[in-house]
């Protein structure tokens, strides 16, 4: 342990605010990114889960709040190149 006490660990000899601000921003942004991505995938999974029979010919939009990139989807993917 590089510090004598928990107080010293928090204070970092006066550099505490800088160090903790950096780590705080890092953790908050990474958590938002990870949780947000996870939730969005689950939301999209949910919207795919409806049985194919109950779909109308015009597929329902996935929740537009959680899926902004969905605007240009639904074109069936053709990988045929040759």
């Amino acid at each position, binding site marked *: *342990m*590089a*510090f004598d006490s928990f107080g010293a*660990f928090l204070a*970092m*000899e*006066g*550099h*505490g605010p*800088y*160090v903790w*601000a*950096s*780590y705080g*921003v*890092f953790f908050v*942004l*990474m958590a938002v*990114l*990870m949780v947000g*991505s*996870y939730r*969005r*995938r689950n939301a*999209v*999974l949910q*919207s*795919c*889960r409806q*049985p*194919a029979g109950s*779909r109308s010919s015009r*597929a329902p939009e*996935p929740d537009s709040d959680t*899926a*902004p*990139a*969905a*605007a*240009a*989807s*639904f*074109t*069936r*993917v053709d*990988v045929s*190149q040759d």
Partner: protein
Amino acid sequence: MWQFFHKLGSPKWFYGIAARLMPWLLVLGLLCLGAGLVWGLAFAPKDYLQGNSYRIIFIHVPSAFLAQSVYIMMASAAVVTLVWRMKLADVFVKAAAPVGLVLTFISLFTGAVWGKPTWGTWWIWDARLTSMLILLFLYGGVIALDRAINDEKSAARAVAILVLVGVVNIPIIKYSVDWWNTLHQPATFKLTEKPSMPAEMWVPLLLSVIGLYLLFGWLACLRMQTEILIREQRTRWVQDLFHVNGGAR
């Protein structure tokens, strides 16, 4: 080899592989990053000159490193998009760009916070900091361009060209500290020399770099799965995915 390459282009195949890889990436990534950061914050010795403020390095360097690596990966995917028209490459670019944006922002922010106590300023227009800011705008531009074009194929092509054009910025970021006079110091880690810090400092740093790499892998898989599902939700295999699941229950 080409067969493998074509298999790689199959969204269905990738979806399955990603699902199997993701738990490993997440657990190992969190372990490595957690170990590196706790070690770096609480156990690594302080620096003789900068004291404890140097502990910001354990998040600053990994995020800056990843921000550039992610861009290089996106540029490689852009070549694949342009030459082979492979859908999965385009899916990767779209999934990775927001992650790259966040990582670049983190590295700029932590750099500014670190610069205040060590250099005496939050920001200075030196070559390293400016080229890193350009990287932030490039990521933003890629995301904006993709949103602006509605047609999937044109969007893929336009985004790929923008990503490729921007890749010249990467060597500029990397070598800016060697080519020009900058306030930013040269790299501590070099491929050919041993790092200019003792092991009890560079081991935790390396651990957090590896951890963040793995977490990026997890994020990329997750976000690519999302994009694939959106694009392919009406195809047979996506529907089968649920019917098999439903039958098992």
